[in-house]
């Protein structure tokens, strides 16, 4: 007990003496950075788990892109399960001149089996749980749809070819689900009214679902049976697989944020190492004195260990509290895309934060501290009694091990973690090598300057190691700033500019063969330019070079899903505009005779398909095989209709075909959409400009979240800079004193130090500009797929920021060096 009390007192005393602040701040920044992301991720996870039942609206869900075989409901009856069905698609709802794209769900009696819909008898009045589904001839619309169409309860709306009456306002639809793009206004109708709408046609994008609920055991039995009986395009969704695409998307976002957060941790670790080193240096004598006073090795070690544990605990608690506050910033923007109400986070992230604090102390603070344990008491009599220096391998090894563990833990994926580690290490090493070499060159160049410059640059070389650390830290911090300002703006601008202003902003799907001529006429009548109407046939990839293809053939989840689904195939004689052949050649007359395929290069890579491969397709129950004779690159940003796979016409012509087109609709032609919906009720018009706007909004939110996390990186970078400066401060003060004693003027001393700082600031600025440009180019290439022209000004920005950051530090340091008369500084340094 007495020992703990003494440790607490030592903590207070060291804190008062200013020995621990830097360490505490660095620890707090690291914990805050990681816990803010962890708290956010935890809330999202909880929301997904909590809402899983409601998200499904059932205990088990069978979904399909075609009407489900009756044996699925038959088996459910046999197992004594309750069942209901839903049919989901997107369509235009109209009233008079107004029209609005809506997410339609046609449901059977009993829907939903889990959770409840809530409805209100009018707009802006209290809602209540609905105890049944809309009756025949009635629909429930949500507030957005009601406002867009200007309808209230009792008004009629048109949906496809049918007229339905709004019988309630839909206020809550729990299984609407977690999706970034599920943004269309909602409409729920009775499944009995569906045939009359005439909306379900060949090629329509419809999701059929069978909802099931019952005893746990019966559900499990059914699920096993269903998984074994699944046909093409059919899936079983249980609670564990609810919304896998959202879970995967959020997991990726969490990983990315987590790794960004770790950048701050890495820097904080360096700051902790530097701060502890300084602490150790300053306590070597004290330690020896205490040994003289009779303190045992173990007693002293325990004393310092407890002191650091207490410090770690305080920093961890503070960091967790700050992290909890910061996660509101992260989830505030993103939660609107996830769920109405995020649950409160659990204590797990806090525990992780505490763990992190101690791992960092163990990895970065303990190694320098062990030096204290080896100081002989004799040091009080003879200063040269050192008791062995650092154990560099231990210091660096423990830190690197701790960091590697953290990165792998945060990435939650060995491969990704290893990549991130390699990325961190590679970037750090590259920066360090460049900085080190540049320092030596600068020192050489400095020989030609005046005394002050010569001396300052010589210092750079002498302190090459600590100078490199300073440059590295500052460069990483500045890279974060530049990325968030200059690079981010450039990328967004380039991304927006990529899509021309007259690019198509509407897609029309579900055009039936006999509607092609009337549709062309419709455009002509309104003085609109003609649009290309392209055929589309749905087919499934069955084999590559006679080897059967299934989800099990691929590792990646995305590829698995891609293979399970039907592709949209087209057949054309002419290569569409915006397509570029990168391998092979476009269909020749001979190809046309024999049958051939052209495939998009991205999907070819994903599926592992090469030029000349024989692909086997199943279309409408029939099979055909044809060779790949060309590989195309598409300009997706043109917003034109694009196809992954195009066949020679004779291969597909005889199969059920629907058509698709895209066009640009100027704002002044808005009423065209209503007329179109009235003239062709079965067609689906997709407003891609709205989707683009939404995508942009989501991207902005993610950028905001990343920005918040990058702020920690910056803070940690500044801490390292400060720690590195402090580490050399004692030395600088003594050197300044010696120079003064030798007759140097204050100005000369100041400019020598200034030369040193200017070089550090400028080097860091250049490196940061290079780093931000490199990362920007990587994002442009890998994520946004656009050509990125680096900003010519970024170098100047980097230099300016580097100089500004270092100037503040330099002024402080120079003032410290010159604040005391030389003799005092020399004595203190004895």
């Amino acid at each position, binding site marked *: 007990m*007495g*020992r703990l009390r*003494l440790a607490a*007192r030592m903590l207070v*005393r*060291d804190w*008062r*003496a200013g*020995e621990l602040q830097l360490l505490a701040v660095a620890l707090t920044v690291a914990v805050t950075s990681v816990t803010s992301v962890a708290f956010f991720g935890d809330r999202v996870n909880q929301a997904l788990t909590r809402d899983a039942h409601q998200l499904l609206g059932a205990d088990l869900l069978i979904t399909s892109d075609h009407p489900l075989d009756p044996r699925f409901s038959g088996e459910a009856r046999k197992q004594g399960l309750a069942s209901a069905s839903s049919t989901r698609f997107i369509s235009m709802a109209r009233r008079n001149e107004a029209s609005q794209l809506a997410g339609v769900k046609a449901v059977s009696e009993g829907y939903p089996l889990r959770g409840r819909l809530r409805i209100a008898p009018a707009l802006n009045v209290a809602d209540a749980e609905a105890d049944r589904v809309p009756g025949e001839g009635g629909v429930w619309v949500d507030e957005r749809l009601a406002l867009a169409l200007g309808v209230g309860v009792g008004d009629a709306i048109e949906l496809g070819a049918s007229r339905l009456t709004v019988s309630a306002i839909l206020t809550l639809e729990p299984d609407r689900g977690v999706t970034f793009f599920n943004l269309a206004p909602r409409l729920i109708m009775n499944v009995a009214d569906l045939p009359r709408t005439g909306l379900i046609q060949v090629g329509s994008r419809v999701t059929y679902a069978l909802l099931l609920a019952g005893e746990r055991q019966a559900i499990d039995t059914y699920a096993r049976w269903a998984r074994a009986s699944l046909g093409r395009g059919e899936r079983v969704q249980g609670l564990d697989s609810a919304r896998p695409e959202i879970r995967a998307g959020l997991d990726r976002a969490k990983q990315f944020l987590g790794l960004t957060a770790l950048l701050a941790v890495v820097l904080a670790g360096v700051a902790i190492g530097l701060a502890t080193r300084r602490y150790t240096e*300053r306590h070597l*004598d*004290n330690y020896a*004195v*205490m*040994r*003289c*006073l*009779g*303190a*045992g*090795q*173990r*007693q002293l070690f325990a004393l310092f260990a407890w002191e650091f544990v207490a410090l770690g605990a305080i920093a961890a608690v503070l960091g967790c509290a700050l992290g909890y506050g910061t996660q509101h910033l992260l989830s505030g923007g993103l939660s609107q895309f996830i769920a109405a109400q995020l649950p409160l986070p659990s204590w797990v992230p806090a525990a992780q934060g505490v763990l992190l604090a101690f791992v960092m102390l163990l990895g970065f603070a303990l190694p320098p501290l062990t030096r204290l344990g080896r100081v*002989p*008491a*004799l040091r*009080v*009599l*003879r200063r040269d009694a050192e008791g062995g220096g650092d154990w560099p391998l231990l210091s660096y090894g423990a830190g690197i091990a701790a960091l590697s563990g953290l990165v792998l833990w945060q990435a939650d994926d060995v491969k990704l973690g290893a990549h991130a580690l390699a990325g961190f290490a590679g970037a750090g090493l590259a920066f360090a090598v460049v900085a080190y070499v540049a320092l030596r060159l600068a020192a050489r160049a400095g020989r030609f300057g005046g005394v002050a410059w010569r001396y300052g640059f010589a210092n750079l070389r002498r302190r090459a190691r600590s100078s490199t650390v300073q440059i590295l830290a500052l460069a990483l911090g500045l890279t974060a700033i530049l990325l968030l300002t200059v690079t981010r703006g450039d990328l967004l601008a380039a991304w927006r500019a990529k899509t021309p202003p007259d690019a198509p902003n509407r897609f029309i799907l579900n055009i039936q063969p006999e509607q092609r001529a009337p549709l062309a006429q419709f455009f002509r009548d309104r003085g609109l330019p003609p649009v290309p109407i392209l055929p589309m046939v749905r087919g499934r990839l069955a084999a590559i070079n006679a080897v059967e293809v299934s989800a099990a053939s691929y590792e990646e989840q995305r590829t698995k899903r891609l293979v399970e689904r039907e592709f949209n195939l087209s057949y054309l004689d002419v290569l569409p505009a915006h397509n570029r052949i990168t391998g092979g050649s476009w269909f020749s007359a001979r190809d046309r005779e024999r049958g051939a395929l052209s495939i998009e290069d991205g999907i070819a890579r994903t599926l592992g398909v090469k030029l000349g491969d024989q692909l086997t397709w199943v279309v409408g129950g029939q099979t055909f095989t044809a060779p790949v004779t060309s590989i195309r690159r598409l300009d997706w940003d043109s917003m034109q209709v694009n196809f992954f796979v195009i066949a020679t016409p004779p291969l597909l012509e005889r199969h059920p075909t629907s058509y698709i087109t895209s066009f640009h609709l100027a704002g002044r032609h808005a009423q065209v959409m209503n007329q179109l919906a009235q003239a062709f009720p079965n067609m689906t018009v997709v407003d891609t400009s709205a989707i683009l706007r939404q995508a942009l909004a989501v991207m902005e939110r993610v950028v905001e979240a990343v920005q918040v996390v990058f702020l920690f990186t910056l803070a940690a970078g500044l801490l390292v800079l400060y720690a590195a400066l402090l580490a050399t401060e004692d030395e600088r003060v003594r050197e300044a004193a010696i120079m003064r004693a030798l007759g140097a003027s204050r100005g000369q001393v100041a400019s020598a130090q200034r030369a040193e700082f200017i070089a550090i600031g400028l080097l860091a600025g250049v490196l940061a500009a290079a780093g931000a440009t490199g990362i920007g180019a990587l994002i442009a290439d890998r994520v946004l797929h656009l050509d990125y022209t680096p900003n010519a000004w970024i170098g100047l920005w980097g230099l300016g920021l580097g100089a500004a950051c270092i100037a503040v530090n330099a002024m402080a340091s120079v003032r410290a060096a010159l604040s005391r008369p030389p003799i005092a500084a020399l004595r203190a340094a004895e």
Partner: protein
Amino acid sequence: MPGEAVAVVGASGSGKSTLLGLLAGLDLPTAGSVHLAGVDLFSLDEDGRAALRKRLVGFVFQSFQLLAPLTALENVMLPLELAERDDAEAQARAMLARVGLGDRLRHYPKLLSGGEQQRVALARAFVVEPKVLFADEPTGNLDADTGAAIIDLLFELNAERGATLVLVTHDEMVARRCTRQIRLAGGRIVNGAR
């Protein structure tokens, strides 16, 4: 002998500090043994010697060796705290009052003069009631007047507390005040006369 004062004198490099280090168990001998209060020091391990120092030994150094982050009071409390004594603060206050620094309790070492710092060091050495006090050139960093005052105080305290004083010095005046002088040259005792 309790209350006895032994001066170790000799020129620079004659081995005074080495002898002191050995006597206090801070350094290891290549041959021979040291008995402190009847215990063979080098039959103990480092921690054992530290425990023995805690019970029996006080130190005063030429460069004071006060802990910079600690106030005068805390510096004096430290050895008591290391011994896990509950009355550390009261004892330390009394001791500082005895050395004339009752009004300097909250001062940090760097705010104290050299003489004051050495008084704090004396207080720290005597507060644990040591059986043996090792003093290594206690006046080496002080001017003559201050040094004399410190030596007076050292002898006073030694007489009061009945400790055995081992004083390393090259000040003959100081050495002569001791009951015994041991003169070293080239690492050997050249006279050990009473």
